Every structure is written in C-alpha cells, then in structure tokens.
C-alpha cells in the first residue's frame, strides 16, 4: 500500500497555494495598469473673491466677465483688435454674451480655457451698460485684476502651457473701490 508522508502532503499544499497566489496575481494583470488621464482643459483656474456687501445694484450689473489679455498696456483700439481680429490676443469668460453668476456670492470658482501663451493682464470686468454699441458711454469697467505678487499695484503675468491647467489664479473684486482703469 502506498503511504503518503506528512511532508509530501504539506508540500503539495504549499505548492498548490503558491500556484493559486500566482494565478490571482496574474489575473490582476488584466486590470491594464497605467492609462492616459482624461483630457485636460488648458488655461487657468482659480477663485474670484468679492468684497462682502459691495455688490452694485442690478441696473448697473448686466454681465460679469473674466478677461485675459496677452497685451498690456491697453487702449480701446487694442481691445477691439484683440477681441475680434485673429490671432486673438484678448479672451473673455464665459463669453461676451454670457456672465459669471450674479447672485451676490462671496466667491466664485472658475476654470478659464485658453490657448498656451503669456497673459499679461488678467481680471474681471463689469458690464455697466446694457448696449454694447452705446457710443460715447463706457460699457465695461475693470473691477479687479490678478496682481503681481511682488508689486500689488501691477498686473501679474499668467503663463499658460500646453501640458496642464495653471491653478490658483485668484482675483479680488471690490465693486465700490475698483482699480485704475487701463485706459
């Protein structure tokens, strides 16, 4: 009669266990490993902070937009060219006909899609007049801009690259004490 020794039994158990463990590990290789991340939106993002209780009345707040200009300083001709002539050098968010929320919140987070480039002047504009074509009267005014960390009176540049979104572009808006207008 063939007798199986305890050592053989243990060995068989250990080997089966090893085969099982390896098989489980091998199965997990079907997960796939690394994968390309979902497409990223190039541009920059951040938070717009509003000074509490300083929101203007609704008859002087028709739209609120973020702008990013590759040109600075500006004049009215450069603004028109930058907005409407290709290659565009001035961009607005959400668009010339849409607005950031006007619900008098303390802050709004945003994500501004932009082509790569250096944006020398970034800020918030308030549309104070309902008609774009209202000649002779100011339609927009700057109510806040992204500041140079070393000189808070000057605009800070934002470098947008083709690899990732630039984060942390935070802008402070005080409707009652707007900064000097660019022109």
């Amino acid at each position, binding site marked *: 009669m063939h007798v199986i020794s305890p050592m053989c039994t243990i060995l068989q158990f250990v080997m089966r266990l*090893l085969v099982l463990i390896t098989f489980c590990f*091998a199965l997990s*290789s079907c997960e796939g490993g*690394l994968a390309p991340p979902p497409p990223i939106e190039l541009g920059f993002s951040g938070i717009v902070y509003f000074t509490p209780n300083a929101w203007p009345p609704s008859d002087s707040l028709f739209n609120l937009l973020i702008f990013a200009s590759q040109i600075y300083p500006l004049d009215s001709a450069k603004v028109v060219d930058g907005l409407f002539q290709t290659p565009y050098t001035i961009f607005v968010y959400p668009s010339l006909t849409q607005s950031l929320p006007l619900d008098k919140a303390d802050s709004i987070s945003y994500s501004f899609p932009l082509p790569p480039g250096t944006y020398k002047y970034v800020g918030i504009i308030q549309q104070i007049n309902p008609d774009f074509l209202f000649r002779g009267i100011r339609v927009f005014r700057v109510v806040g801009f992204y500041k140079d960390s070393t000189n808070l009176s000057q605009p800070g540049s934002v470098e947008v690259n083709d690899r990732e979104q630039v984060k942390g572009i935070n802008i402070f808006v005080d409707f009652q004490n707007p900064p000097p207008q660019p022109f």
Partner: protein
Amino acid sequence: MKSAFLYSILIFFLHVSFAQPNTGSIRGKLSDTKTQKPLAGVNVLVRGTLRGTTTDAQGTYRLKGVPAGVFDITFSLIGYTSQTLRHIAIQPDTSIQLDVALVQTAIEADQVVVTASRREQSLREVPVSVSTVTSKMIADHVSVTLDDALRYVPGVNMMQDQVNIRGSSGYSRGVGSRVLILIDGLPYITGDTGEIPWETIPMFQIDRIEIVKGAGSALYGSSALGGVINVITKEIGETSEMRFRLFSGLYDTPRYAEWDWSPTRRLNTGGFVSYSNRVGSFGYLISASRMVDESYRLNDVYHRWGLYSKLNYYFSESQSLTFSTNIQWRKHGNFFWWKSLREATRPADTQINGEVNSTRGNVSLAYKTILSDQVLFSLKAIYYGNFWQDNDAGHVNNTATSHFTQVDAQATYLISQDHILTGGLDANYDYVISDIFGSHPGVGAAVYVQDELAPFQSLKLTAGIRYDWQRVWKELFSSPAATSPAQLNPKIGLVFSPGPTTTLRASYGEGYRYPSISELFTSVTTGVSQIKIVPNDNLRPERSIAVEIGGSQMLGERVFLDMALFQNDFYDLIEGGVNPTRFEIQFTNVTRARIRGLEIGIKADWWNRFLTTDFSYTYIDPIDLSRDVVLTFRSRHLLYASLTAHYRQLQANVDFRSVSRVETIDENLVRLAPIVDGDQRVAYKVIDAGITYDLINAGLPLSIGFTVKNLTNYYYVELLGNLSPLRTYYVSIEGGW
C-alpha cells in the same frame, strides 16, 4: 595587516610547482535521456584537479592533460540532474570514452559555477546566493539584450536597462553601475560613465550568465557593491558548426487611441549567425548580428550591427590562448522620457529630433596554462573602446571617447583536495576625452588572494581579501581627484552540509565603487532641460557591507528550496542631487542606507518532468538612514513565477513577474527636469508566454518558437516617464548543424 597580506601572497607563489606529470585524456558525448538530443554547454569537471571543459553544440567534449590516477568526473548542466561517474581510472597516454545521458530536472542543486570564487566549483560549495541564466532560457524568451534576459532572475529588478540586485541601485540611468558586469571574468563597464553597455554583449555567444548577489569587491574590485554578473561565452567546439537565430516581433496596437501614434504596426526584427570550426589545435568562430527595432514609441528606432570573432589555440594539452574581438555600431533615437502620460509614446518636445550614435568594441586575450597537477595560471587582458555622440536634428551636441584596458593575472593552487588558494594581480588604465566630461586619465592596480579550506567533508570555509588602488586625474597626470585611492575589501564565507540534501551558508563581504569620470567631472547644461550639471572631484568611493545567511534543501526528489536572509549596508552612496534654487545637479555623497530582506526560491518538477515550476519571492526593506525614510526608486516586493511544460518535442512556458510599486521617487527630478506626469507609476504584473517546437526528430536541426511578451498588454513604467513595451508577438527560428 598589510605585511600579513603580502606574506600570504608570497607564500602562495612560493608554493607553485612546475612539474608536468604523465597524463591521459577523456572524450565523449552528452545527450538528453529523453530526447537523445545532444547537450551543449555541459560542464565536465575532474574532481580534485584543475581540469574541466564544456561540450560543444554537438554535445561532444575532449579533456586532455588529465593526470594519471583515479578520479570522480562530474557532468552538470542547468536544467539537468548532475551526474558523477565514480572511480574513473586515467592511464598515462591513453584516451577513454565517456558518453553520458543527463536527465532533465527543475532542480539545480549541484551545477558548476565559476564566478563566486574565480574558479569552477559546485553551487553547493558557494557561500553566497548565485543564480544562473542559460543560453536556452535566452532563446526561449527571445531576449535580444542581456538586460532583457535578467528580468526573471530572483532578486534582480531591471529599471529599463539599469540592473538592480536586491535594491542596490536607485535612479541613475545606468551611470555608475553598482553591479559589476564581467565577460569571461573581465570587467565590462564603460570608462566614462561607469555604466553597463548592454547592447554590445554578444548575446548569441553566451553559454550562461552567473549572477552573484551581494558585495563582491574582495575578488573583483570596483563596482561590485550589489553583485556581480558574469557572462560566460561559448567555447569553440571540436567540429565545424553553423548556427543561426532569426526573430521578428510585432508590437500590438495600444489600447488607448492617444498612444497610437503610428499609422503602421511596428516591428522588432533581428538575426544572428555564426560559424565555428577547429583545425587541429586551432579553433575559430565568427559571428554577425543585425537588429532593427522600430519601437512602439516615436523617435525610439534602434539599429544595431555587430561582429564578433574568437580564435583559440592549444599550444599543448594544458596550455591555450584565446583571442576575441567584438564591435557594435548603434543608432538610437533619443527617447529620454515621454511628453506626458497622455502622450506616453511620444518623447518630450526637446527630444523629438534627438539621436545617439555609438561605436563600441573590445579586444580580449586569455592565456591559460596548467603548470602542474596543482597549479592553474591564467593571464587575461581586455581593451574596451567606447565612442558615442548625441545629435539633435543633425547637430552634434555631446561626444565622448573612452579607452579602458585591464590586465589580470591569476593563479589557482590546489594545495590538497580540501585546500585551494587563489590569488592574482590586476592593473587597469582608463582614458576619457569628452566635451562634457573633459579629458581625464585613470590608473588602477590591485592584488587579491582567497583561501578555501574544508576542515571536514561537511564544512567549507572561505576567506579572501583584495587591495585596490585607483586614481583619476583632472588633467593629464596632474591634479588628482581628491577621491581616496586605496580600498581594502575582505570576504568570509562558510558552507555547512549536514546531509547530502541540505546546505547551510553564511557570508560577509565588502564592496566599493570608485566614482566614474562622469560623476567626478561632468560639466554641461543638459539639452533636455536647462539644468546645469556641475563637477565634484571631492567624491568619496561608495562602500557596502553585505551579510547573508541562507540554506538550501532538497525536499524529496523533485522539490528544491533555497532561502536567504540578507543585510546590505551602504555608505557614502553617490547621488545626483538637484539644487532647485540654482537649477543645478551635482553628484555628492549623500546617503547612508541599509537594505534588509529575504529571498525564497522553490523549484519543482511534476508528473515525471512533464511540468516544472519555479517560484521566487524577494522582500526588501530599503531605508535611507541619513533621512530615516524609504530609499527612493526601490520596490519592496518581487515575485517571479515560471511554469514550463514538456511534451515530446514541444515546450510551452508561461512566466509571470510582479513587482510592487516604487514607493518614493525624487520629486525634484520630476519637477525640474521637468518630466510631465513623471510621478505616475504602478505595481507591475507582466506575463510572457511561448511555445517552441523542436524539429530534430523530423530530421531538421531547427526549432521554431512563438512568444507573446506582455500577454495582457499591461501598461507600466520601470523608469520615470518611460512606458514599458506593449504586448509583442514574436516568431523565432533557430538552427545549427
């Protein structure tokens, strides 16, 4: 200490005896019991003498100059059970025929190795962990370069082409290798960057590769901190032989459209051919190779041409001279790292037109003579020349030329059956001319001795020591680098065999690495980023102390277990540290590290060798003691498993390797290079599978194979920002007559 050491050297040479006794010879043929196929590469060793040889491709061997007497003769080959013929009588001036058939096994308890003690010995007599890779394994895995062949060796982890034994190496892209590579016992490290030139190793001529784990500078000198890899090339056979191997691989389509950059499927194709013959005492071998890897990545195309030759002459039955040459030309796209994980098969924009061209080659000479029954003397020399340049859109950026020469004289003295003394002298010269490293000469010399004593049949003791002197100059032999030139590295080993199936071992060894010329003198602004690399000629050599205890046990007749516990202490590890404020990289001695771990290997064969299994698991605990954190670029767990089935002329194998995620990396390197998504890494689990069919029974001396590498198309990185190969389908054909 020094005088005792010199005294032992003197005693060694005084013991040398030059008498030449009456001798006989042995010849014969080795074959596989089951298939009757001739076995190449079988080690034939006359126990208690210095005589040994290996079989050629026809399985034949001839061993001349065996002293008259009665000996045990051992025949061993990896993958086969060793066989010892007892009490074979050798008569003067007569030749005896010994034909032996070996039985296949997964168990390799008694194979012959040469690296651990600089002489042929049974694996059971070695006090350190040793693994081997055979030429058959290389062919079965369609391994085109040596680094590829090492991917299933227990305790070895490849970071693309950088070898890492038990966690010895971090991220250096091969510069300053902490593993020493040898070709037939001579160092094979580039003179400028101290890296291993993998692609120049003549893969088709490899008989076997031995991997010795742990510090090995007591025998081999600089670079042997983490271990030693010895590539042993095939001997020229007794009869004419033509061999070839052709392969073609097809990269699969990536699973993700973002990575599918090529409109056509990419191929990896190559071939080797060699012819050898022996006319009387003169043997010759010539070999050529050609490889084109179109790559699965953009700007990563690889072209290689190679020529190899070996000439061998027997002056007498106990005296031979071997001369070999090897030259390789290579053109390689410069894919340094990816553009981003989203575009992982495209290089960063700065590398899109880059290319590295190199011409590398070596000439080596080996003279061996058996001076008496007791003394074997060998004189070996190697010259290794290395030229490379990197181009960007046709514009040459950097160039480097290095010349490295080493001469090694060694004597092995068989004092008695139980007492062997080995000793030798080394000298080397290195000269580098480069626009980024500068022009620097280096000179080194060393003396070593090792004593092996078996006070009892079951106990074997080994002790050895090596003194190295190395110096590199800033200018032509003026202003030497401040690096300490002198190193003394001892080793001690013990093997205890309480029974025929049990071996216990313990070892202590020290290692060191003299900084490479590139680490000492590089001065350049890198092309791939704008970071400056600045020189530091105050570097100290890296040092290591390795301690290991282990044992092996046969369990029944079909299971072999090997276990080791190890601790490697590293001092003054050199790292290329990034200074983020000055945008500079400088190599400095920054790290004191300790790596502890264990390694377990179990091999078994089942159902009368129908199936063989091979498991190994290595755990390491890599601690950077300077900062009390986990050492960067190390994986804690390595699990390798292989399963091979044989049925008549068919062999099928499945190999699986699982390596845990690298826990920490150098974040500054990722941020400043910059390597976009360079921190992206996963544990990897890769399956390779293949079948080979031998047509020898159909009257054709051919075998054909089909292999799928990375069967599940698992995506991972071994090196930051470098996606490892996709699933690839290979067909191969190998033949010889």
